[in-house]
């Protein structure tokens, strides 16, 4: 009896918590199709009008395109450099290797954080990287690389050195070894770091807001803050519609990658 009561209480509690967190999702799913959305979930009077308005907005679609450029650019840089660095770090014995890695990890949270806002802006100005996608990509890459290296090093560490030695004995050069053997074996790790980077950049507001002056170049995360009515009220119709468009690619990407790799690791040998 007591256990049954406890169970009922626990289930009720969990349901309430779930409902609490599910409400915003429901709102996101329903508001874009509502002709007159407010900050509450209601059965919409169905319309696709909001999407038409959004498509007419000069910055909305362009900003999604900018987001893609920033995310893809950063992901490319992060994956390539993190793979090279993680491979080197797990194969070459360096004194103080782990300390170095942890220090980088610690400092990296500063690079993309508010604390380094002013120096980064000054640096970007001097390098003429203000108002350019390259500047944002470089700054974000710098901030994300240490964590990416840290994540990937787990994968390179777990790859037996004998794979590479086998390739070497058959005459493969270091780059061939990397391309033919290491990269395919750690591909799930690369995919993971790739989507992690994309998700980070996709949601990042501060750096593009700081470094991109021209609204033509601003990514979706920044543009969303411009959807206000003439009266200074947030334009909920536009914001919700845009939010939906903004989140769909990330969700799709997760589904795709998780189906493709399922984050399992394939190996030939039981150990």
């Amino acid at each position, binding site marked *: 009896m007591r256990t049954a009561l406890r169970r009922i209480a626990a289930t009720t509690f969990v349901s309430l918590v779930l409902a609490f967190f599910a409400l915003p999702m429901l709102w996101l799913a329903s508001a874009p199709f509502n002709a007159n959305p407010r900050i509450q979930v209601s059965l919409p009077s169905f319309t696709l009008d909001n999407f038409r308005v959004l498509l007419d907005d000069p910055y909305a679609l362009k900003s999604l395109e900018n987001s893609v450029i920033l995310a893809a650019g950063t992901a490319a840089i992060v994956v390539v450099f993190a793979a090279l660095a993680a491979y080197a770090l797990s194969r070459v014995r360096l004194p103080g290797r782990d300390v170095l890695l942890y220090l980088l990890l610690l400092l990296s949270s500063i690079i993309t954080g508010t604390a380094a806002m002013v120096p980064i802006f000054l640096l970007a100005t001097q390098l003429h990287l203000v108002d350019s996608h390259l500047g944002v990509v470089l700054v974000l890459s710098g901030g994300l690389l240490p964590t990416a290296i840290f994540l990937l090093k787990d994968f390179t560490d777990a790859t037996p050195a004998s*794979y590479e*030695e*086998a*390739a070497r*004995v058959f005459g493969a050069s270091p780059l061939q070894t990397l391309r033919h053997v290491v990269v395919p*074996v750690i591909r799930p790790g690369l995919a993971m770091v790739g989507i992690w980077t994309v998700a980070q950049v996709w949601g990042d507001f501060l750096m593009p807001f700081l470094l991109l002056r021209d609204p033509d170049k601003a990514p979706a995360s920044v543009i969303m803050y411009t959807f206000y009515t003439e009266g200074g009220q947030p334009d909920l119709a536009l914001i919700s519609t845009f939010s939906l468009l903004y989140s769909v690619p990330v969700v799709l990407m997760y589904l795709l990658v998780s189906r493709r790799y399922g984050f399992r690791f394939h190996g*030939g040998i039981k*150990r």
Partner: protein
Amino acid sequence: MTGVELNALTKDYPGGVRAVDGLDLAVPDGAFFALLGPSGCGKTTLLRTIAGLETATSGTVRIGDRDVTRLPPGRRDVGMVFQDYALFPHMTVADNIAYPLRIKKEGKTERHAAAAAVAASLGLSDLLERRPAELSGGQQQRVALARAMAARPAVFLLDEPLSNLDARMRLEARTFLKKLQHELGVTTLFVTHDQAEALAMADRIAVMEAGRIRQVGTPAEVFRRPANLFVASFIGSTPMNLVDARVANGLVEAAGARLRPPVRVEDGVPVVYGVRPEYLAYSATPVDAAFHGRVVVVENLGTSSLVTLETEGGVLVHVVVPEDAEPGPGDEGWASPRPGRALLYREGELMTNDVTAAA
């Protein structure tokens, strides 16, 4: 001619560990050669140094008539099979076997034809499209061998080739490897810590201890006449009896027994008398020149039994007794060495007639 020749080869690891210590070794062309030793004796390091995966600190490695000491592994013309086989998990069996040819920039069709031919010779034709994870241990080993064979190297290097197989597969693979090596006739070095494996497969064995070679010889030589106490105690599935002894009146006194010395030896010299349990004849009745004691343990070896005698001095002597003749524990027994099979060691080294003459 593609033998392997090592001269004063030394490998130091950072931190002062000397894994290979000034080692000289000549592996004749076409030999099936075992590097045998306990774990940590440097045998795998030696193999990896020959492969070029480790660089020698000093000394030279020659393969055929080339000095390869400073060459990278890919240019030494060796094929290697790793202990864990190191098959690339993302490639099919065919791609794995063809990989050395891919590095040699051979065309896709040629290298797949070559891979298929090698695979066929090892009975792998049905498995070409599988991935390594879908193969049994024995199949993986054969794929690794096929990959090593694909580029037709001058020398094969096998690192603990049987250690990842279960006991049953191991016997099968032993026969298979020996037959294959014989057919190919390619100089092959393999590393093992299992003396039975080395005796069974190799034409010649180098027994290693602490980075040095303690004896090189055919399996029969290494088994019958171990050159020193280390080899004597390491070789043989039932350990050799090594009994501290003294020479008096031209006879060896060991554990209460007075035995004829196998070599000329002066009186008063402390020696170790060595004889394998297989070379001792057990008798339930008193015989001359035999170890005498009480049976304490009888271990069944299948077709024979290993009988442990405890002599009066408390020294244990092991005897192999054929089936149906086993004594029971507590019985009194005598064990006499078979003529010509006993050995004497002085200061750890095997005594021979010419050495005693020189000393």
